[in-house]
């Protein structure tokens, strides 16, 4: 009992996150008809499985310093393995509880991780990145050649209602699948967190920092890379298995370079230097992908712009931005930043608005007009051929930009003051 209380006090964020994840869909519950929003549940499921995928990606990028461009291969292959297992269970070839289907994906990811990792981890740095890129393309090409396993362009369709649940759940409703996703996300995240505290996890950091030094304390950096790669394949495969359960169809898109890029973006934007960073990044990237893509043709542009801005101004990602506040929090002066932040908010909003107006006008003038779409704000239709909207957008952007720069300068002064303050108060005795 005492142990439990102690654990809860130290790691309260874990149960809190799980409860929040389970409660969140109820914020979008359709009380009139008494059912969940299917869109929201699929969106949240996507966030869950992409969280596992991005964290597994970061086992390579953040923890081992290995930039992979082909991580989706392991995700996709795990997904295919899970889909085939589901079909086999459905056909009665063998029995397996639905709850353990993601594990099949994981084992598939592990198997292919060993296979591909054996080749890729012979090299490190740029050569490693190039090999993973080549392998990613190679496997995506295989998808169209080996129709038996990959199902060609149509992919493999499957049915998650297997009737083999050990919990007696049918998994016909998205809500039931979502609960399974939450459970697996929690388990996989916990395991990956613990993995960082194992000898292999520590030596992955060490070889990232200085592979030569790692050799001279008795470790073969290649073996460290290989084992870390295989382990990350296992978790990528679990994510792939969940994908098969959520969407009930697996196509070669799951192994595409776009899927690999999504993991890279999530890990980088969230902050690859921190274990939890990729989770923040995943939430943001999936929301942009699934949410903004409904609203705008140009959503990729926003993701790209965000990526560039993060690389330029916050190389530590979102997690890095948060941890930069740590010294100020320690001296109890976080509140002093509230007003400066609020003052950034308004010009920041105007700048973003100006950018969005111009981007959307461009997109409607090009892609939109080709598809016969019309730009509407409320009831008013806006014609991109007209000069006025362009002028308005440009003026808003310039005014916002100039204002934001001024406020940013003020913010910088205030920030430096607080950091200096924190330094003097926290120098070593």
């Amino acid at each position, binding site marked *: 009992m005492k142990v439990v209380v102690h654990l809860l006090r130290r790691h309260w964020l874990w149960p809190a996150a799980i409860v929040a994840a389970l409660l969140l869909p109820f914020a979008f519950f359709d009380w009139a008809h008494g059912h969940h929003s299917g869109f929201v549940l699929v969106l949240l499921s996507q966030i869950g499985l992409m969280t596992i995928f991005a964290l597994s990606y970061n086992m390579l990028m953040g923890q081992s310093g290995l930039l992979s461009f082909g991580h989706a291969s392991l995700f996709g292959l795990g997904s295919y393995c899970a889909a085939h297992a589901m079909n086999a269970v459905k056909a009665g070839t063998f029995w397996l509880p639905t709850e353990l289907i993601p594990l099949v994906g994981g084992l598939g990811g592990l198997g292919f991780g060993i296979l591909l990792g054996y080749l890729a981890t012979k090299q490190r740095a740029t050569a490693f990145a190039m090999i993973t890129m080549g392998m990613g393309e190679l496997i995506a090409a295989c998808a169209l050649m080996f129709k038996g396993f990959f199902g060609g362009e149509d992919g493999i369709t499957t049915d998650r209602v297997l009737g083999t649940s050990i919990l007696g759940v049918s998994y016909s409703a998205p809500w039931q699948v979502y609960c399974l996703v939450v459970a697996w996300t929690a388990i996989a995240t916990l395991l990956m967190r613990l993995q960082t505290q194992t000898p292999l996890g520590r030596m992955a950091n060490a070889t990232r*920092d200085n592979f030569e030094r790692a050799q001279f304390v008795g470790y073969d950096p290649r073996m460290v890379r290989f084992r870390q790669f295989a382990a990350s394949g296992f978790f990528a495969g679990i994510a792939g298995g969940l994908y098969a359960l959520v969407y009930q169809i697996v196509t070669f898109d799951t192994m595409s370079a776009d899927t690999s890029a999504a993991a890279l973006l999530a890990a980088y934007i969230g902050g690859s230097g921190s274990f939890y960073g990729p989770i923040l990044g995943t939430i943001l990237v999936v929301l942009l992908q699934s949410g903004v893509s409904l609203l705008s043709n140009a959503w990729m542009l926003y993701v790209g712009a965000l990526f560039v801005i993060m690389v330029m101004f916050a190389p530590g990602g979102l997690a890095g931005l948060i941890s930069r506040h740590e010294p100020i929090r320690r001296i109890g002066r976080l509140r002093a930043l509230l007003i400066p932040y609020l003052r950034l908010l308004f010009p920041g909003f105007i700048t973003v608005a100006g950018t969005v107006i111009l981007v959307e006008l461009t997109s409607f003038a090009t892609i939109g007009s080709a598809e016969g779409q019309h730009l509407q704000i409320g009831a008013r239709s806006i014609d991109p051929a007209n000069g006025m909207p362009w002028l308005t957008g440009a003026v808003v952007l310039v005014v916002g930009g100039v204002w934001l720069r001024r406020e940013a300068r003020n913010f910088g002064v205030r920030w430096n003051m607080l950091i200096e303050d924190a330094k003097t108060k926290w120098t070593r005795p």
Partner: protein
Amino acid sequence: MDQAVNHAAPNHPAIVLRGVRKQFGRTEIIRGVDLMIPKGERHALIGPNGAGKTTLFNLVSGRFSVTSGSIALNGQSTAGLAPHHINRMGLSRSFQITSIFPRMTVFENIRCGLLWARGYGYSSWRLLTSGRAIDRETDAVLEKLNLAARRHVLAGLLTYAEQRALEIGITIAGGAEIILLDEPTAGMSRAETDAMVTLIRSISAGKTLLMVEHDMGVVFELADRITVLVYGEVVASDTPGHIRANPAVQNAYLGTGDN
């Protein structure tokens, strides 16, 4: 493993070099070196810049492979072995240019030096939860290095002298029987050098030490025997007293006004 080797071959010297040559392209850096260092000796390698001291270190530790000749540790040949294999034979080295794990804490740096030696291997299931014997051992090393107060600092943020001490710490943490130190006091102040000499003396007690050093004060204070290397050849290998009196050495090295 290193202990097993010692028991199996108690009469072999710690390090034996026979006719070792190393060529880079057409340039021969090491030109036929013979050297024998018995167990438990503190041995210094000196010589003017470009004499090949660091190259010789890299050959012994397996960073480079020899062009011809042979190297044996405790009677076992190291031909064709990768650095991590040589490390597992009981040899550990430090670097002239500080080589640590900058984004890990001081504590973790030392613990990394201990993991393999304590049999943790590549384990992906044993958790390094706090309070283990390896943690106590790590703390003991930190005490010895005078870095205990800095255990949670990222190694990259240490001062230069602290990083040099950490470098030595990583090298000796695993308890290697043969220790190679490459210019351990380079770039240090007098006081820092004195502290380093004390540290080296304590960590090398009962072990075989081979070190490259430019500071003659340090060399004569620590070494049981000194080898003078000039242009890839051994000019002399003797006790400090004889080396000081050796005219060839004075001519080639000491006489240049270095010290």
